[in-house]
C-alpha cells in the first residue's frame, strides 16, 4: 500500500546518505526516540525488531523507510512520528551506517521445520497465523523481526535474552511485562504458575500453564514468586538435533506475516 508522503510522491534517495554529521545526529535522535522499542543500538528491543539486520519487511528503499518512520505501520506497534524531514533522513543515514550482518542463512528444510514445530509441542504455546497456543509470543511475523542467531538462541537457551518488557513512557495505562513467569501461592498452599497478563499493587491476572485465565487479590495469597526465566523449556541437542534445529529455524525464518 503506497501512502502519500509529503515531498515523497516518487522514489527519492537520502540527501544525507553517508554524511558523518547526519549519522551522528541520527544516532542521537534514534537513542532519544526509537531506542525504547528498538534497543539502544538498534539491535532490537522488547517490542521493536532489530534494524541492523538489513531486513526491511515494509520496504527497503529510502522512500519506504521514510514512509514507515513518518506514518508508522497501522496494525503494528510502530507509531507515526513528528520528525522534521531532515531529522528522518538523519535517522535513515544512521540505520544505513551499520555494516550488513553476516548472513546465517538457515540451511534447513522449511517444510520439515513446520512439522517439527507442530509435533515437538511448539504450537501448544505459540500462535502462528491464528493457530496454536496463547502462552508464548505469537510467531506469525518472527522471521521478519528476528535474526537467525536470535531464533537459535531462543530455542536452545530461552532464558538468555528475555523480552525486557521495556516500559513504554507513553503507556499511561500500565500494561506490564507479558512473558514474565509468575507463581502464586494461595492461602491453602496451592501453587499456580503462568504468565502475568496484568498486575498492580492489589491484584494479579495470570494465564496459567493450562492456558486458563486466573485472577487473584494479593491479600488472599501467601506469596507471589517472580522468576526471571522463561516458561519455555530449553531444547537441548537430545530433544532437537542440530539438523532439526536448522529445519525449525528455516520454518521460523519464513514466517513474515504474509
Amino acid at each position, binding site marked *: 500500500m503506497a501512502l502519500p508522503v509529503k515531498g515523497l510522491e516518487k522514489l527519492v534517495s537520502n540527501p544525507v546518505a553517508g554524511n558523518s554529521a547526519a549519522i551522528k545526529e541520527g544516532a542521537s535522535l534514534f*537513542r532519544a526516540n526509537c531506542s525504547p522499542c528498538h534497543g*539502544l543500538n538498534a539491535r532490537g528491543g522488547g517490542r521493536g525488531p532489530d534494524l541492523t539486520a538489513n531486513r526491511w519487511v515494509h520496504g527497503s528503499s529510502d522512500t519506504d523507510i521514510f514512509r514507515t518512520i513518518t506514518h508508522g505501520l497501522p496494525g503494528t506497534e510502530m507509531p507515526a512520528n513528528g520528525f522534521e524531514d531532515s531529522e528522518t533522513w538523519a535517522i535513515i543515514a544512521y540505520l544505513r551506517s551499520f555494516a550488513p550482518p553476516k548472513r546465517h542463512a538457515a540451511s534447513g528444510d522449511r517444510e520439515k521445520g513446520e512439522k517439527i514445530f507442530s509435533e515437538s509441542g511448539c504450537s501448544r504455546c505459540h500462535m502462528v497465523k491464528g493457530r496454536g497456543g496463547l502462552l508464548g509470543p505469537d510467531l506469525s511475523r518472527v522471521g521478519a523481526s528476528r535474526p537467525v542467531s536470535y531464533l537459535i538462541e531462543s530455542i536452545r537457551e530461552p532464558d538468555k535474552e528475555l523480552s*525486557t518488557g521495556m516500559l513504554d513512557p507513553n503507556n*499511561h495505562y500500565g500494561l506490564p511485562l507479558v512473558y514474565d513467569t509468575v507463581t502464586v501461592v494461595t492461602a491453602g498452599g496451592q501453587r499456580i504458575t503462568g504468565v502475568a497478563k496484568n498486575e*498492580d499493587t*492489589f491484584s494479579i491476572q495470570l494465564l496459567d500453564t493450562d492456558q486458563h485465565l486466573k485472577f487473584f487479590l494479593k491479600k488472599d495469597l501467601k506469596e507471589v514468586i517472580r522468576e*526471571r526465566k522463561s516458561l519455555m523449556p530449553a531444547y537441548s541437542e537430545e530433544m532437537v538435533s542440530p539438523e532439526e534445529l536448522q529445519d525449525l529455524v528455516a520454518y521460523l525464518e519464513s514466517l513474515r506475516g504474509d
Partner: protein
Amino acid sequence: MKKTVLLLGLLLGAWTSAQSQVSYERLVGAAREPQNWLTYSGRYSGWRYSSLDQINTGSASHLAMLWAFQVADLGQFETTPIVVDGVLYGTGQNDRAFALDARTGRAIWRYQRNLPEKLQPCCGMVNRGFAVLGDRLFMATLDAHVIALDTKTGNVVWDVMAADYHQAYTFTVAPLVVKNEVIVGVSGGEYGIRGFVDAYSTATGRRLWRFETVAGPGQPGHETWAGDSWKTGGAPAWITGSYDPELNLIFWPTGNPSPSNYGDDRHGDNLYSNCMLALDADTGRLKWYFQFTPHDLYDYDATQIPVLIDADWDGQSRKLLIQANRNGFLYVLDRTDGKFLSAKRFGRLTWAKEIGPDGKPIVNKDAVPNATGTEVCPGALGLTNWFSPSYNPDTRLLYVATSTECDIFTSAPQPYRAGHDFLGSVYVPDPIRRPSGALKALDPFTGIEKWEFKYFSSPNGGALSTAGGVVFAGESDGNFIALDARTGRDLWHVQLGAAIYSTAITYQLDGQQFVVIPAGSTLFAFAIFQQ
C-alpha cells in the same frame, strides 16, 4: 471590610456563599479555612496537609464516589484544583480549564486555549493548575503566556507573552500568588532554554521582575559555565515554590542544566541549575541559594516542593526548609540564610557516596555516563520527582512517593538546534529489574523511615495528609489509596482505570468532607457514604 468577611466566615465554620473574593490575607491564612483549598500546596508552607478530619482512620473504609467530571481530553491529567467557597477550579490537558459546583461536579464554565500546532513540552501537554486572587484565576500556558481568567465566566481578563514557544519555552507550572504578584517558572530543560522565574502584576499582567536561573555575563555564578554554554544552560523552574510571609522570601526550586546527560561542554557547577532559590518577593532579588546537584549529568531537577517547618534543631528553634530531592537525599536547610544542616539518603542511590559537611555531594566517579552506558541509581526520573510530598504536623512525618528505578545513562555530544531536544544522548531503564515504588513516611529531620507502603510500579502521584490521620496517595497503576498516617496500613482503595499523575486535595461543604483526585481524563470526588 475583607477582614470582617473573613472573621464572619471563620465563625460560621463554612462558606456557604459562592461569591466572596480571595484576598492575599486569606492566602496567608489558608490553614484557617480548611473548607477551601486556596493554593497549589494548600498553604504557602508547602505542606499539602488539611486539618479536616471527617475522613479518618475509622471512617475511611466507607469512602464512596460522589461525582466525576470528564475533561474529555487525552494525556496526563496533572492538575491540583483550587476550591473557593463551593467552586472548584481546575486545569486540564492541552490547556483546558473548568469551574465546577464543588458539591455536584456540574460545570459552570469551560475554557480551552487556542494553542499553536508546534509546541514542544518535554513530557506531555500538561498543566498543574491555577492560582487565585480576588475574582481572578491565573494560569501559565503551554505556549509560554501567562493569563488571567474571570472566576465567574472563565473569560480572559489579560494575556501576556512571557517567552517564545518557538524556542521550546513552555509553562506547565501552577502559579503562586504572593501579594499582588503572580509568580511562574518556565519549562524547557530538555531543549536548551535559558530558565527564569517571573512575577507579573495580578491587576494588569505587567511583568514586575524576572530572575534568570542561568547566570549570564556580569551575574554572580556566571563563572560556573564554560564558554558560551550558559546560553543554552536550561535550569527550568517548573514546579510551584513556597513562601514565608515573615521573611518575605519565595523559595523556588530549579531544574537540570542542558544538555541533561552530557557535561563536557558545560564544565563548572552550572549555577543556578538544580538549586533552591530564596528570592525577595517584592524585587525577585536573590537572597541566597543552595545547589543540590552541581554539574548534573543525570537530569536530577530539584523541582520538588520546598516544605517549610519551624522546629527545634540542635536545641535551637529554627526556620527550616526541607526537601526530599530527586537525587535521593532528604535535605534540611535553614531558610533564613540557606545554611546546610543535613542530608540523608532515603533510598538506593549510587551517583554519590554521601553529602559532605559543606552540603556538596561526594560523587561516585564510576557513575559518570559514557558512550556505552553506565547504570546509575536513582534513574533520571529520580528517587522522587515533582509530585507533592505531604508534611503532617500531627505525626511529624513527611510522606514521599518514591521509585526504585535505576537507569543506564549514555552520554554523547549533541549539537544545539533552537527548538530541538538537547539531551546529550539518552537513558533507558535497567532492563533486568522492573522498577517499583513506595510511599515512604520519613522523619523529616533525621530522614529515618517510619514505614513504607509498596507500589507495584513507580509512582507519578504524590501525597495528601490530614488531621484525620489519613494519607491519600495515587499510583501509576490507577489505584487511589487511603493509608493510616501512623502505620501505613491500607484503609481503603479504589481502581480508577488510569494512571494517576497528580496529588489529591480536600475541602468541606455543608459539613461533608470531599477528597478529589484526577486520573485519566476524569476528576473524581469521594466522601464518606451517607444514606
